[in-house]
């Protein structure tokens, strides 16, 4: 029994907003409905449903997946939820791929949803619950205390200045101006970013993506179904995921080797030998500016220490040699964790099909990559799509 081919055949999403009136179920429904409509399928055509949602503490649901199931289209269907923290969104596509590639299902609806706004006084508070209850929480550890540690070390090791990484925000927020879901699209200069207030040195306010509410869905289908319902199936050519140790203080904070391992797993499956030549567009994870560059290097899409230079040379612009985050990414579109990462998969899908409208990159890209990063700065998930 060989591996079955799996295609993305439809995608949908909600707007990303700071605070949505919609309940998580309703957000899920809107994204799922749009994805199904986009490929003219009905709920009865769906064999199984996969849901990704990152952190239950954001919206205060225990067993969040159970709550979401009907909005995600899981009524009386096989339904599973998974999470790998921030890496959940891209993993959703991988989990859905398993459903179809295993031969168990022909059509799988994949949904990622996050509603962060219910958390009071601020969604940041929920991050406290991510850390070690005994050794870290009593010190008040939070995201703005640890991610900058990575950024600091990463910049020092590679000799990057604040301006070098700030360009990521400028590019992505500009790209986002053309995205209908975006809440943080803006025309900025490098100086604007560098001059924005320091949240946690070396992180400035404009280096960070914003918490948000939103949902994204994609529909996966087996080769037989995909060829029947669309003339532009986008194939899931490679998947990879990897998790590093829980002891974050003993990891190499400057280089996410787990992302590299996830990428190599996906490249091997897709038969990709020279990623820098064979990948045409990329949507690496960009919750913070430096992460885009760091992830590009770990994905082997840029040599170590070279990403900032390529960025400055406009290689990663929408009309550059390798467009990176043409969607606008998390920095531009917004960051409802799991939904934002699955949005990256959806963006690659639209770009490869030539359906990205004003965001469309030139040159008919054939192969694209989406990546996310998560858990406690330790998880990498990678999907390679091909048309």
């Amino acid at each position: 029994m060989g591996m079955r081919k799996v295609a993305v055949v439809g995608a949908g999403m909600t707007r990303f907003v700071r605070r949505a009136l919609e309940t998580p179920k309703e957000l899920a429904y809107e994204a799922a409905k749009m994805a199904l409509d986009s490929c003219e399928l009905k709920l009865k055509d769906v064999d199984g449903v996969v849901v990704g949602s990152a952190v239950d503490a954001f919206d205060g649901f225990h067993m969040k997946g159970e709550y979401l199931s009907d909005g995600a289209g899981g009524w009386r269907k096989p339904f599973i939820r998974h999470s790998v923290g921030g890496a959940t969104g891209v993993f959703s596509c991988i989990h859905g791929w398993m459903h179809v590639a295993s031969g168990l299902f022909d059509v799988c609806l994949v949904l990622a949803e996050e509603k962060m706004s219910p958390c009071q006084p601020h969604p940041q508070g929920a991050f406290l619950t991510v850390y070690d209850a005994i050794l870290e929480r009593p010190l008040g550890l939070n995201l703005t205390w640890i991610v900058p540690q990575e950024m600091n070390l990463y910049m020092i090791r590679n000799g990057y200045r604040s301006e070098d990484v700030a360009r990521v925000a400028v590019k992505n927020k500009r790209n986002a101006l053309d995205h209908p879901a975006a809440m943080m699209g803006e025309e900025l200069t490098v100086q604007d970013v560098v001059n924005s207030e320091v949240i946690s040195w070396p992180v400035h306010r404009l280096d960070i993506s914003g918490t948000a509410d939103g949902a994204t869905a994609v529909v996966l289908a087996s080769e037989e179904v995909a060829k029947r319902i669309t003339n532009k199936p986008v194939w899931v050519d490679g998947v990879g995921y990897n998790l590093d140790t829980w002891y974050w203080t003993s990891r190499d904070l400057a280089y996410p080797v787990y992302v590299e391992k996830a990428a190599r797993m996906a490249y091997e499956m897709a038969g990709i030998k020279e990623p820098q030549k064979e990948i045409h567009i990329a949507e690496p994870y960009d919750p913070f500016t430096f992460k885009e560059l760091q992830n590009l290097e770990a994905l082997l899409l840029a040599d170590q220490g070279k990403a900032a230079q390529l960025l400055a040379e406009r290689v990663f612009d929408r009309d550059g040699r390798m467009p990176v985050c043409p969607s606008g990414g998390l920095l531009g579109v917004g960051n409802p964790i799991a939904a934002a990462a699955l949005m990256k998969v959806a963006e690659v899908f639209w770009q490869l099909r030539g359906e990205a409208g004003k965001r469309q990159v030139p040159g008919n890209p054939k192969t694209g990559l989406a990546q996310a990063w998560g858990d406690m700065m330790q998880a990498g998930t990678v999907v390679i799509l091909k048309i």
Partner: protein
Amino acid sequence: MLYEAASKAYQNAGLEPKDIDGFVNAGEDWTEGHSIADEITPDQLGAVKRPVFTVNGDAMQALISAAMHILTGQMNICLVASYSKASNIKSLANITVMAMDPVFNRPLEENPYFIAGLEMNRYLYETGTTREQCAQVVVKNKKNALWNPSAGHGISLSKEQVLDSPMISYPLSSLDISPHSDGAIVIILAAAERAKALCQKPIWIEGMGWCSDSPSLEKRAWGEAVYTQIAAEMAYKMAGISYPRKEIDLAEVSDEFSYKELQHLEALKLCRKGEAGFLVEEGALGISGELAVNPSGGCLGVGSLLDATGAQKVLEVALQLRGEAGQRQVPNAGVGLAQSWRGIPTTSGAVLILSNR
């Protein structure tokens, strides 16, 4: 705890962590007191810098995900891990209530056991099953647990003791409810060729199914476990089983509450609707009965292991099919069924059909 369980699984399979292609963990954040509880597991499993992910669901759903991954051909050997640290939660009722709808259900501020009360009442009403028959399930399972060295809640009880135990949420009394336990279970799956090479007595997954009914308390089915019915249909179809009652030798089903065992047996088509109560009364569900159900002692006897419960069910069926169940061995067991339910307030369950042929 998980490290020890994983070490034993590796030893039992004659493997080392480096032989494993992928790892799947089952668990929920709020029962850990930890957001993204996923992040803690690689170390315990020897899975640092390896493919690991978490299913926020029952361990049986995690196992199904691992099995699917093997079926894709990308992986040969996968490890499934799950554990319960129920003892560390000081306020389980307050956690369970957060699985309910915040707008429609939480404001009532009632102990979530009321959901089991509502469901039991409707089940008894629709099927004519009695509280006495449910009590008999408790007696049977707690007795089975006496033969299970891993079970913490084995005891010899009379039906009357169950019936007379304090009422929690009518018609559910305190002994109808499974106590919680701590524990860790690790299961290793391998593709057919690898399994044959590795293991003298591999247990084969013949069928798998899983399903969720409407999560809404207002719109779900109450009398029947529809989620299990649909999951079972899927699993039977895959396993080529047409007459479950004849073809299955033993079953481990979720008995989080006494009536659930009976309701699940009916949904699994192991008996007709309304019949399960009589079967337990007649002793047909005992270890040497016509159909052994929960020979391990079930949740009532072993203790509910939160999301690891499904793994306990699979483990018991595997031990029984290997003939390694010691004093509680079911004679001539060839095909077994394991079923799980995620507990109140959910309507999610999974079914696995296992065989030793």
